[in-house]
């Protein structure tokens, strides 16, 4: 393990977690958090592209005002399955289950997560849920929308809603176990000298995410269970025909699903903190503020769910309270954005691919977050609720934010995970293509939404066509931007340059071990004596 100079050419370590053991059984019965992370990586990549395929079909249909490519029912299934797959089977697990699983124990200097067998179990539960989801798709899919509003989903649709609900519940339990594991690991397994105030911000973010996972997901489980029971037994929990209340479903659903969006974005924010500091060679500006803002987002996130229901029939006074609280929840995110920008001030910046994604995140998340404030403003929400404005908003934060951060993190930790570098030039190109494609796809949708085009429409009035065509054109560019990394990442497994322990010269315990790391993570137990992001002493990047 060398810590300096450009002289030594990096070599792969002889034994590491990938070649320690061969065979299917050693992978499917592994307790190594790093291998489990790879298992998750393969699974969620599959669902990302599956969801992406549905998106492509949606945008294809929306090229023309008439609903001429698919039948109405088919289109309804397409957007439902796009949403369900993307939210529950890609976004919620994404960073925590892949990068988090791999890197978090390394970052805290532990040999593994607190409960390795439960970690493996969580992947199996996820796969079981995925199986149910695929089974539902194969037998026709659901057309409820990812939001499953009643009484439509409880009494009027003939698709396999209960089956899908089971799949989602299982994916939910998988995330509960991941979160549980992270919480206990961060509390109990930090290396000597690693106090809370020295933790990397990626750990803080995932810790806050885990808190939300553990507290909010069970409510989704019970809500979907009640929905399934209602469908099968016609009880009257949410269906007014039998005395139930459909607005209660919305309250219970959004009580999980709003915190869920913070489950999706917080890990991304953690990644950005790591990237900005490394590629500015600077400690983060306002460490405590960034750390506590993650916790603040987690706490406030539980208090704002009914801002999805302003026109659903809630009282005006409730609406005002939720609007006020929703303004409050945006402030910690704003604080983060300012802190990241300030971190770059007087830094020493290079624009490697991970940094490009990080900068893209800051810009796009800012737009997405601010349009969220627009939606939280009652007077405007009445007009734009359930229109393409909302779709544009959440794609800005989810794709422009979360997926961008995910890509940045993948590129950043790819050398640590595989021992090889990805090719920098194609990567930069892909980042640029993604950025352009993304904005071209989703910016027109803000305008479409204000014009009044509702969500989930597969045919629309003619005057909306130009913007829809722009959006679909952008989608094809965006698709290329996502396919390219798939190709060059796979290419790099065989032909990528050997990375060495610390190709970026980054701080962080994960960079103090080999790339790829040994199965038990560290040859010697690390002891921490310095602050995080101590870039004060220059470390020359080897070979780059």
């Amino acid at each position, binding site marked *: 393990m060398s810590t300096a100079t450009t002289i030594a050419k990096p070599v792969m370590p002889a034994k590491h977690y990938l070649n320690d053991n061969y065979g299917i059984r050693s992978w499917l019965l592994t307790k190594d958090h790093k291998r489990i992370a790879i298992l998750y990586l393969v699974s969620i990549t599959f669902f990302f592209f599956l969801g992406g395929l549905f998106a492509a079909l949606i945008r294809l249909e929306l090229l023309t005002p008439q609903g001429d490519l698919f039948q109405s029912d088919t289109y309804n299934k397409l957007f439902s399955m796009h949403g369900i797959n993307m939210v529950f089977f890609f976004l919620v697990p994404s960073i925590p289950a892949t990068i988090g699983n791999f890197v978090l124990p390394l970052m805290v200097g532990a040999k593994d997560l607190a409960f390795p067998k439960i970690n493996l179990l969580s992947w199996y539960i996820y796969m079981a849920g995925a199986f149910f989801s695929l089974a539902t798709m194969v037998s026709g899919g659901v057309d409820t929308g990812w939001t499953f509003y009643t009484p439509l989903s409880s009494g009027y649709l003939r698709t396999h809603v209960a089956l899908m609900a089971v799949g989602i519940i299982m994916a939910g339990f998988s995330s509960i176990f991941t979160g549980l594991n992270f919480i206990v690991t961060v509390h109990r397994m930090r290396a000597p000298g690693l106090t809370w105030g020295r933790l990397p911000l990626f750990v803080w973010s995932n810790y806050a995410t885990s808190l939300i996972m553990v507290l909010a997901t069970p409510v989704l489980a019970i809500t979907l269970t009640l929905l399934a029971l209602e469908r099968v037994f016609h009880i009257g929990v949410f269906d007014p025909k039998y005395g139930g209340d459909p607005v209660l479903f919305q309250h219970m659903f959004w009580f999980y699903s709003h915190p869920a969006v913070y489950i999706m974005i917080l890990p991304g924010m953690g990644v950005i903190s790591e990237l900005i500091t490394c590629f500015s060679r600077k400690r983060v500006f306002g*460490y405590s503020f960034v750390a506590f803002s993650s916790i603040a987002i987690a706490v406030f996130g539980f208090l704002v769910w009914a801002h999805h229901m302003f026109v659903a*029939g809630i009282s005006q006074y409730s609406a005002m309270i939720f609007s006020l609280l929703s303004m409050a929840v945006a402030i910690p995110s704003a604080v983060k954005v300012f802190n990241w920008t300030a971190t770059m001030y007087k830094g020493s*910046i290079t624009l490697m691919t991970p940094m490009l994604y990080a900068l893209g995140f800051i810009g796009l998340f800012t737009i997405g977050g601010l349009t969220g404030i627009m939606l939280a403003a009652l007077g*405007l929400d009445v007009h734009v609720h359930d229109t393409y404005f909302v779709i544009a908003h959440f794609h800005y934060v989810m794709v422009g934010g979360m997926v961008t951060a995910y890509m940045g993190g993948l590129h950043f930790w790819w050398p640590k995970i595989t021992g090889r570098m990805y090719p920098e030039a194609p990567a930069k190109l892909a980042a640029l293509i993604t950025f352009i494609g993304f904005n071209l796809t989703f910016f027109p949708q803000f305008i479409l939404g204000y*014009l009044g085009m509702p969500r989930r429409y597969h045919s629309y009035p003619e005057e909306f066509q130009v913007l829809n065509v722009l959006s679909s054109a952008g989608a094809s560019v965006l698709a290329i931007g996502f396919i390219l990394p798939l190709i060059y990442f796979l290419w790099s497994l065989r032909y990528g340059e050997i990375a060495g322990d610390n190709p970026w010269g980054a701080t962080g315990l994960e960079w103090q071990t080999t790339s790829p790391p040994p199965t038990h993570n560290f040859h010697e137990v690390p002891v921490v004596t310095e602050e995080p992001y101590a870039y004060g002493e220059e470390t020359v990047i080897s070979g780059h």
Partner: protein
Amino acid sequence: MQFKLPLFPEQASTVAGQVDAFYLFLVLVTTFFSLLIALLILFFIIRYRRRPGQEAEQIHGSTLLEIVWTVIPLGISMVIFVWGAVLYYHIENPPKNALEIYGVGKQWMWKFQHPGGQREINTLHVPSGRPVKVTLISQDVIHDFFVPAFRVKTDVLPNRYVYSWFTPTAPGSYHLFCSQYCGTKHSAMIGEVVVLKPDDYAAWLASGKAEGSLSSMGENLFQGVGRVTCHRADSGARGPNLLGLYGRPVRLSDNRVVIADDNYIRESILNPNAKIVAGFQPIMPTFQGVVSEEGLIQITEYLKHLSAQESEPLNNRSTPTELRDNEVPTIQQELQQRNQPAPTPGKQP
């Protein structure tokens, strides 16, 4: 393909301009902060790009800056909140003299009824220049009544009346969308709102075939289901007198006071046990399945008509709001002696 590239829908109601102004302000704030961050980043990556011999300055932070950039966004968001809340209050609360129209949404069409009895499917004619309040309900799943040109929207729920109001300004034809996903033909549940100048509107009303006003239809229905035998104006009536009821407070048997609004009337017809008027027995049978949504609307309109006719409630024992407490035991006794429970479909499966 049309090459129109509009950015705003037409402004066709009094509130549309206010919403647009608010929107513009929000867009400005968003653009300002997004540009600020983007330009700062752009500046920093150029100015502080990695150069040999130059090291980054390890700045710890600045509590003052943190406070500044917490307080300022908080302040701006509070302005946004207040402006939005005030505008919302205006959007949600109709003035008293609004023209009342009723709408029923069902998969996948809209049915409207004007007070004069005129019915429309998927089209809604309204006069310009005066407030119009549309009371809506769904027959099946949740729909949504959305008119972009007016900037109004409300989810339309089953089992509960909601309303939306607007004052149209410009005559013309505007899109009406259902914007809550409601199944197969959700995208086809499109209608239009036709705004006519008041004279044209009156002409249109006269030209249509109406079976009589909504309220007279309601009166027929009311008598047809035999409710007149219970809800009478005299002191021996089994049910409260409905004259002057609509819009007034009612005291219930558990001492709560509620307002007799559309939802109260609908609930009392479909689920009479839920709220029993003080001094009366829970003997009213339910009319679930007997009266349709349109029928319920007609009865409600009839009751509103009754209130409008009599400006003061009759000074009468059976008027709910007029019961004196010391009279209650006497009335209860009389009722017990006279009342036999009505025959009901209880014993058969």
